[in-house]
């Protein structure tokens, strides 16, 4: 046997070991975070990004990453301002191994759609965003996960119907929608009109000018109209002011239903007893009764690695939303790794993972999130993923879940979404994707 033949296995083993070590050093999946920790929406930003980072930290600490691929992140402050968000995007987009963007801002997300499409990197807008980006035929890289604004609207009306004894009982009822005077607030105007026509309830939609710190005129109008319910589509300071002004005008809090951005502790705490009985929609429960939240409390905060400066906020609405967002990101990477290998994935490969992000209630239980959220079923053409909603009521100290998981009327909403996305595609000269396009994926070599 020649010398070369004798040392070949050793060389091979050494090369594998060295290669493996190099690969494990290099295998990182990165999350650039356009966070907001100061400014008017800092309370939401610190909670959400805190929860997201806590979950990424848990995966690294407990599992050593996703199948050995370490998760990393970097932050840029946006103060929730679009121009700052875009500046952070431009600054961080050259970071290697970007998995996805999570700006938690409708305005910033709108401004990034063309950019991420060119970069072939997913843009997540959990529970918010532009509704027609649900249509993956037109928006391959944008994912309004769990709940788009139209589904939220449908979920709220379905909940009111369940309280009244069925959809038939909505006929003749009067509902006022009090919305924030912004593109976000106005997004659902046509859907409420559609649902009012379908179910026969009387509808009045009233705008509150930004930022919403004065609502006397609106609530006097509401008192004059004597509605059965008021739906609060608020944001920031508008929410506690709505609740206190409602109390000042004698409107009962338990007849006010908040949307998904009016459902946090920050929305009700400043209102004091005016918020007791107030109900709001959510896609994820609050509290710490869930294994994944308890594990974060134990392993991350127990080791002083937690991202929240105040551990009392563990399990708050925004913190838990951040954790759920972390779960969805990590599971998409895991699904994509199963197809492309346990290595740093390209943004387009992660996009493939999101387009196959199907988490059954059983899988949700496995990741320690049973009843924290229900399930998700993203497909190549449905980027929302049929998220279920539930309703919580504020008792003055904490939120209590008061409904089962409720399904929005997706079949009713889909044609409206498609009409909007197809109009966008026609305006931009885009060709609609087909199922065959899903597996055309940019690999590391082609990047």
């Amino acid at each position, binding site marked *: 046997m020649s010398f070369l033949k004798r040392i070949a296995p050793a060389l091979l083993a050494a090369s594998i070991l060295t290669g493996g070590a190099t690969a494990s050093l290099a295998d990182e999946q990165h999350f650039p975070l356009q966070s907001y920790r100061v400014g008017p929406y800092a309370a939401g930003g610190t909670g959400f990004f805190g929860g997201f980072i806590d979950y990424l930290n848990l995966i690294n600490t407990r599992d050593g990453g996703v199948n050995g691929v370490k998760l990393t992140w970097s932050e840029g402050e946006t103060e929730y301002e679009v121009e700052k968000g875009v500046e952070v995007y431009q600054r961080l987009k050259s970071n290697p191994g970007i998995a996805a963007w999570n700006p938690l801002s409708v305005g910033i997300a709108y401004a990034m759609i063309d950019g991420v499409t060119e970069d072939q990197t997913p843009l997540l807008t959990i529970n918010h965003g532009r509704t027609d980006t649900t249509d993956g035929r037109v928006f391959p890289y944008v994912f309004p996960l769990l709940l788009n604004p139209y589904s939220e609207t449908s979920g709220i009306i379905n909940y009111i119907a369940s309280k009244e004894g069925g959809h038939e009982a909505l006929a003749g009822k009067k509902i006022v929608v009090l919305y924030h005077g912004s593109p976000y607030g106005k997004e659902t105007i046509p859907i409420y009109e559609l649902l009012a026509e379908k179910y026969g309830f009387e509808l009045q939609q009233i705008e509150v000018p930004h930022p919403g710190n004065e609502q006397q005129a609106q609530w*006097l109008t509401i008192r004059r109209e004597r509605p059965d319910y008021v739906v609060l589509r608020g944001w920031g300071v508008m929410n506690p002011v709505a609740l206190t002004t409602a109390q000042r005008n004698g409107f009962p809090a338990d007849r006010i239903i908040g949307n998904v951005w009016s459902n946090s502790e920050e929305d009700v705490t400043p209102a004091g007893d005016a918020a007791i009985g107030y109900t709001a929609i959510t896609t994820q429960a609050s509290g710490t009764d869930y294994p994944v939240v308890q594990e974060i409390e134990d392993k991350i905060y127990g080791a002083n690695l937690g991202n929240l400066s105040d551990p009392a906020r563990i399990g708050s609405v925004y913190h838990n939303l951040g954790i759920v967002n972390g779960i969805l990101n990590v599971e998409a990477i895991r699904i994509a790794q199963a197809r492309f290998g346990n290595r740093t994935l390209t943004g387009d490969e992660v996009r493939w993972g999101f387009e196959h992000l199907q988490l059954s209630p059983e899988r949700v239980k496995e990741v320690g999130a049973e009843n924290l959220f229900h399930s998700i079923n993203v497909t190549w053409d449905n980027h929302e993923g049929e998220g279920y909603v539930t309703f919580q009521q504020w008792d003055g100290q904490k939120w209590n879940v008061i409904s089962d998981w409720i399904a929005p009327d997706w079949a009713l909403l889909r044609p409206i979404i498609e009409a909007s996305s197809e109009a966008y595609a026609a305006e931009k000269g885009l060709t609609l994707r087909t199922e065959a396009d899903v597996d055309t994926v940019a690999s590391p070599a082609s990047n």
Partner: protein
Amino acid sequence: MDWYAFLFAVEVAVGGLLSGVMYALVAIGFVLIYKTSGVLNFAQGSMVLFAALTFVSLVEHGVPFAGALLLTLAAMTALGFAIERTVLRPLANRSPMTLFMATLGLAYVIEGAAQLIWGTQVHRLDLGISNAPFEVGGIFISTFDLVAAGIAAAMVAILTAFFRFTRTGLSFRAVADDTFAAMAVGLRLNRIQAAVWTAAGAVALVAGLLWGARLGVQFSLSLIVLKALPVLVLGGFDSILGAIVAGLIIGASEKLAEVYLGPFVGGGIEGWFAYAVALVVLLVRPSGLFGKKLVERF
């Protein structure tokens, strides 16, 4: 118009008047500084935030109400002196625009400092004043708004007496009338400016407590300047009485416009309607309803 519709219109107007008092509370802080130094202090909203956040954080740390009030007042005094020493003195004799830009920067510094020191969480502020309404002749009136109006009236009375009868108040007026003449007779401009900013800080504390109890103590408190600006334009930048009267006019007119004109133009008009009223007044009376008329010769 039937009786119910009439009562409703009265209720809208009364609600607007009471809201207007709250706007005037913020506007008075602007007036104090403009009156004595000719500076439009854009940082007044940030001072409201800083005062309210300091007060509520102290209370949450177990300091009794009165103690927290005194400590916050001390903090606002320190802030007033710090602003005079680090911003106003180095910029002495610069143009009003330069000073305005300096206060713009100051607003960001104070907002950032407030959040750095006390954090970004939203706080509840309970002053023990009921928010529940009571009924007078079929009209709902908010107890809280009435108390706020009483506090505003007391503050105006105190400030008026201060300007008329105290040595420091007279010094303020002297500086406001003619800065160089005031210095020529030996008034110490630096000390007076620091005292004015301290007084504006005290007004910011009162406004911060009342607005904080209404909105919760959070960053958005600094945005209430947007409500005060049309009040200032309408009432005149240097008149405390003007701030009160203009606050009442702006409050009532924007609410009536929102309820009766809003439905015809898509709603949500009260934000800009106040500015439209102020603009119309500017065209007719450039110094506002009560502002000092400026005569310049070129």
